[in-house]
């Protein structure tokens, strides 16, 4: 047993047992079977060091939202301890369902090929019932739709050539969601960045960030993919291109889960992996770029802070950008977990808790009568759209819609 890991990297000894983490844990509030982060993390880790048989399957109830770590006044990596314990001690190995849910890129490339068919079938109650019965993927869940054209394909055909015309450039880690489900979000980013004078490049090789692989205990595959990504990111940074993202979870995974959970060192490039909203806000704030907005854009928008955005501490960048748009009536939602946690909420055993966790957030959204909810995470988007009926957009897409492209280009000439 590697005890050293626990005294240095993932030390739990600063825990003074104040239990604030458990107060902020969305799962502990919704499900009394979950012992809470303090018990599941630092407390039981002492027992697991004594004997791995003290590992408890209730740890699978953890969403990995990391709200415990945000709450902790002693800087204990509670979520990391729990996640690492799941990877190390759990006897439950991933089954077919986990492979399907976690391999977002494999599933995505198959689904995009037959997108209309796949999308239509995934809406059929019969198909959902079969998936529920055979795979234990809850039939209540609305499945994400797939796009017929991948973002990468669009980019190569329509955008790549002109990216060489810019003096300044960045790389874009689009992630699986943009590539297979929602290329528009990537197109929106290209549109904004080009307008403010940045060329956009793809990474040499991009793999799924691996967040779903980690939470479904496919650690080795996650580590392989992490290494591919970090190597691509290294080459991009060496070429003077920071790496932008439009998903808070991919960003958080590559910055923090890679070194903390997978042991993949990214110290040399970590600060160059940035959410696009942060990058743009800082450029505007420093006066390096200027934005001009359409006068006819009018929207009442509420921002939802995804858990990993809370952990990054970056929602201030996304919200500040949204507040710059003159036509936006902005509202900040309470920082609450929506309950889906990636693949977690798709699983039949978790579905009821998933919805119970999200309930206070759904109630607040429904009460506000907004046109749009803005958020930086795609799975939060699925959950909120399914549970409230309100349309959810990434701040980048909202910015792109509100942007006066011609005027902006002129301002940044």
């Amino acid at each position, binding site marked *: *047993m*590697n*005890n*050293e890991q*626990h*005294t*240095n990297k993932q030390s*739990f*000894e*600063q*825990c*003074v*047992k*104040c*239990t604030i983490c458990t107060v902020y844990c969305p799962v502990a509030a919704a499900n*009394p079977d979950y*012992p809470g982060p*303090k*018990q599941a993390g*630092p*407390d*039981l*880790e*002492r*027992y697991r*060091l*004594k004997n791995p*048989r*003290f590992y*408890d*399957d209730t740890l699978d109830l953890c969403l990995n939202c990391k709200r415990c770590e945000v709450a902790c006044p*002693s800087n204990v990596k509670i979520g990391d301890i729990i996640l690492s314990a799941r990877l190390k001690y759990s006897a439950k190995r991933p089954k077919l369902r986990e492979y399907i849910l976690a391999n977002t890129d494999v599933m995505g490339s198959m689904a995009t090929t037959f997108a209309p068919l796949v999308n239509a079938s995934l809406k059929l109650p019969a198909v959902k019932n079969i998936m529920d019965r055979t795979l234990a993927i809850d039939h209540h869940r609305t499945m994400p739709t797939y796009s017929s054209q991948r973002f990468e394909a669009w980019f190569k055909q329509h955008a790549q050539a002109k990216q060489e015309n810019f003096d300044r450039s960045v790389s874009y880690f689009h992630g699986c969601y943009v590539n297979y489900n929602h290329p528009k979000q990537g197109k929106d980013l290209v549109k904004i960045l080009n307008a403010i004078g940045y060329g956009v490049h793809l990474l040499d090789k991009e793999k799924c960030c691996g967040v779903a692989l980690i939470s479904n205990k496919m650690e080795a595959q996650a580590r392989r993919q992490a290494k591919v990504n970090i190597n691509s990111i290294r080459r991009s940074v060496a070429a003077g291109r920071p790496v932008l993202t439009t998903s808070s979870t991919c960003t958080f995974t590559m910055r923090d889960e890679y070194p903390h959970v997978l042991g993949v060192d990214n110290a040399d490039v970590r600060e160059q992996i940035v959410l696009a909203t942060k990058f743009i806000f800082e450029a505007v704030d420093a006066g390096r770029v200027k934005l001009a907005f359409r006068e006819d854009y009018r929207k009442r928008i509420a921002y939802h802070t995804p858990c990993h955005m809370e952990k990054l501490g970056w929602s201030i960048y996304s919200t500040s950008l949204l507040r710059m748009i003159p036509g936006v009536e902005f509202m900040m939602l309470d920082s609450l977990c929506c309950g889906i946690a990636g693949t977690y909420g798709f699983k039949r055993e978790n579905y009821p808790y998933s919805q119970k966790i999200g309930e206070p957030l759904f109630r607040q959204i429904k009460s506000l009568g907004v046109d749009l909810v803005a958020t930086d995470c795609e799975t939060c988007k699925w959950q909120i759209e399914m549970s409230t009926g309100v349309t959810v957009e990434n701040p980048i897409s909202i910015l792109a819609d509100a942007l006066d492209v011609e005027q902006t280009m002129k301002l940044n000439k």
Partner: protein
Amino acid sequence: MNVNKSNHFDVIIIGGGITGAGTARDCALRGLKTLLVERLDLTNGATGRNHGLLHSGARYAVTDGESASECIKENMILRRIARHCVEETDGLFITLPEDDLGFQKTFIKACRRAGIRAEAIDPAEARRLEPSVNPSLIGAVRVPDGSVDPFRLTTANALDARLHGAEVRTYTEVIGFIKDGRRIVGVKLRDRQTKSESEVYADITVNAGGIWGHRIAEMAGARVNMFPAKGALLIFGHRVNNLVLNRCRKPADADILVPGDTISLIGTTSSRVPYDEIDDLQVTPDEVNLLLREGSKLAPSLAATRVLRAYAGVRPLVAADNDESGRSISRGIVCLDHETRDDIPGFITITGGKLMTYRLMAEWATDMVCKKLNVDKRCQTAEICLPGSSYDKDTKSIATPLSIGTRAAEGRHGSMSKKISADSRLDRSLVCECEAVSIGEVDYAIRELRVRNLLNLRRRTRVGMGTCQGELCACRAAGLLGKANGCARKAQEDLAAFLNERWRGMYPVAWNDTLCETQFTSWVYEGVCGLDTFAKE
């Protein structure tokens, strides 16, 4: 003399340490009417203040072959009769670059002579077996060391004595002997809680008072030359090592690191202390520094690990009878027949020895008692398992996953844990979160293990022994005790006393995380609960 059936015993044993409890069990198993009296709680003395090391005997092999072979025999017996108190971890005797590697050969030879399995292993293999070991080691010998929980062992012995008809009275102090001529025929007792005094009679009285046995013998009119040797230890916040780590050299200070339950222990120092200090031992900064410095040589990560607390015990070293100076110290078992030695019939002292050889000490003492009483019964303590270590198949259904408290309690109480209720959510909910002690377990301890206060409860379960040292659990446990004893006021006093006792052990190591913890504890209990204003009243 007011002798009647209820206050007359075959044998009275003074001292509720492991020797006294073991002797009471042996006497009871041999059918003697037995009374065990202890002035405080069971395990209050040296029994509860040592390493909890299940010696293989290897440590003594070179210097004291007899102790070594006693140890390995008792080691093997305890693995069988006290399974639930023992962890069969094995241990390593490591050679560091500053040590003489030549000693290893002498050591292995001496071990084998004493009947101790000892095999030299490659340093790389040692690092693989025990990743926390100092990576610069140049040699390692694997021996059958382990750890033993002295609290559980004593509780199980006392419990078995009671199950075989013995009476156990804690918080009952011996204030004098009743004599008939020179013969000791009974003792005068004072109940420390009710302050009431009483007399009990017995044909034989056994002094098993450890270092306090010196005073008891004096009271009886005999002189046993004892020298208190203080040994300080540190407890770390979690298990750093899973194998016992020793230095392969002549025994020295702070060279044993023992994994015990959820923690690791480093010790000990060794220094003579004046007799009047034995009830109030303080661990000094020099001792703490020495323990940390030497401990880090065994396992470097200790330097960065939270120290939970420091404590010290007193070894009862006995001088040979003909040596008034005390230079010739025996670490072996000393069983004194005061009838032949001092012309005091009816009085026996059993002392010396060590935790590992308590059963043998009890056997010697009980043999002597039986001889004097003309009882012809064989000792069976090496064969009959202690309560908790029985091999019965009657374990709980594992259809539903066991709660963490139930699993932790199984480790603490062995097969007795089936008496712990886990039926309701309330029974399963935790009192002590660090050590996973449930309400059901606390109820069991109050019901069956002679728990009157939080200190007793801590030693019978592990309430308050974990990372937070009582911060979260003490008030919950005090609430349960208050309910059981029907007195809230006493529970409050008990709570204040318990927290002060916890602070005493944290004070010598109060820096970093431990200091934060104590601060937080004082906010909770003084700032929020107002326990300090209560204590001043």
